[in-house]
């Protein structure tokens, strides 16, 4: 028994993160350094820190081609091509100019996009965003003031019940001007 306990403890040691010089420092410290390099004096943008790692393309970065990410990705520069972050969150920052098809689990849009957008879970279009292209998603949140030209296909989530036609819960969100809409659409749930 005693020896077995020691064996159980041993394999856990290699799984620990690499030793950090300052143990008291927060885990998201490397991300903060990246964010600081892409912040501009005129438009500041600080994406939410994400657990499990994330990558970022700063506002002075231009990419032409295909981007595949296996972690959350923030784009604040120029991208032309395709961007795929399956199972992860893709954030298009306020300075971004994207001419690409986008695929991700969740997509947050603050900048300018020309291309089709496909999110398996949710798309969040902020008021300063400009999107020209078709949307395919399970849920969509769009703030008043956002520019959108294209079509919206709501793919029904497997767990969601069929939305009731003319249901007040679906039909009444964000009716007032300049009020951000926080109610997911088309899933029949708030």
């Amino acid at each position, binding site marked *: 028994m005693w020896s077995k306990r020691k064996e159980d403890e041993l394999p856990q040691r290699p799984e620990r993160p690499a030793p950090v010089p300052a143990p008291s420092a927060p885990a998201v410290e490397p991300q903060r350094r990246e964010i600081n390099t892409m912040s501009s004096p005129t438009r500041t943008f600080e994406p939410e820190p994400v657990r499990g790692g994330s990558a970022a393309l700063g506002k002075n970065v231009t990419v032409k081609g295909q981007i595949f990410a296996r972690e959350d990705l923030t784009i604040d520069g120029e991208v032309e091509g395709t961007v795929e972050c399956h199972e992860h969150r893709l954030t298009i920052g306020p300075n971004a100019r994207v001419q690409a098809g986008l695929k991700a689990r969740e997509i947050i849009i603050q900048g300018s996009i020309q291309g089709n957008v496909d999110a398996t879970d949710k798309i969040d279009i902020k008021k300063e965003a400009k999107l020209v292209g078709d949307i395919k998603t399970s849920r969509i949140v769009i703030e008043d003031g956002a520019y959108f*030209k294209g079509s919206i296909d709501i793919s029904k989530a497997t767990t969601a019940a069929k*939305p009731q036609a*003319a249901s007040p819960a*679906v*039909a009444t*969100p964000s*009716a*007032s001007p300049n009020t951000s809409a926080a109610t997911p659409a088309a899933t029949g749930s708030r």
Partner: protein
Amino acid sequence: MKFGAAKGTSPKPSPKDQPSSQIRHSSGFEQFCSLLQSSESLSILDMTGASQANISFITGFGHRLSSDDIVGTMQQSFGSDFFESQQAASTAQRFLEQTLTFPDEFFDGALVWDALQFLASPVLEEAVKQLLRVMRPGGLMLAFFNADEKATRIPIYNYRIQDSKTLLQVPRGGSQKAQHFNNRSLEKLFERSSSLKFFLTRDSLREVIVRK
């Protein structure tokens, strides 16, 4: 009318004069909703600015929604006084190239709202022609037109769906010169459609359902 005011022009309203949001009961939209409830997976065009309310309502029926902000395109193409700037052929052509760029017979229904009244001839007739082109045979369009002959400038609204009978008119800021329409002029404008249905309203906004 003030002394010295030129005929046909009126001063732009100050921000204090801007209208506030108002609820509107719409029999025309109620009729349009019968189309939405009739079957699933329809293609619907919404010609006001994209909004959560309209997206939620339309997609809640299981339909596909397309958004094309025609008033926004007018402002981009013609400038702030867009009604009076539509006579230049080059800008008119640019507007028509950016608007209603959808395939033929693509939509089962279109929510045009009051956008057409801000278009002047010949752009108006060309826009109606494009609208009818993108509609499927039997498809419905809901359009509002100003019927007040005395109004020289009309506030611009976005239309937000509240429920199957009620709309919220949200001021978009500013006002524009606009045409006024009577039943005869509307029949002439949509002479290529198969039928028109007019709805009586208490205000000066005429509601029309056009069937292709």
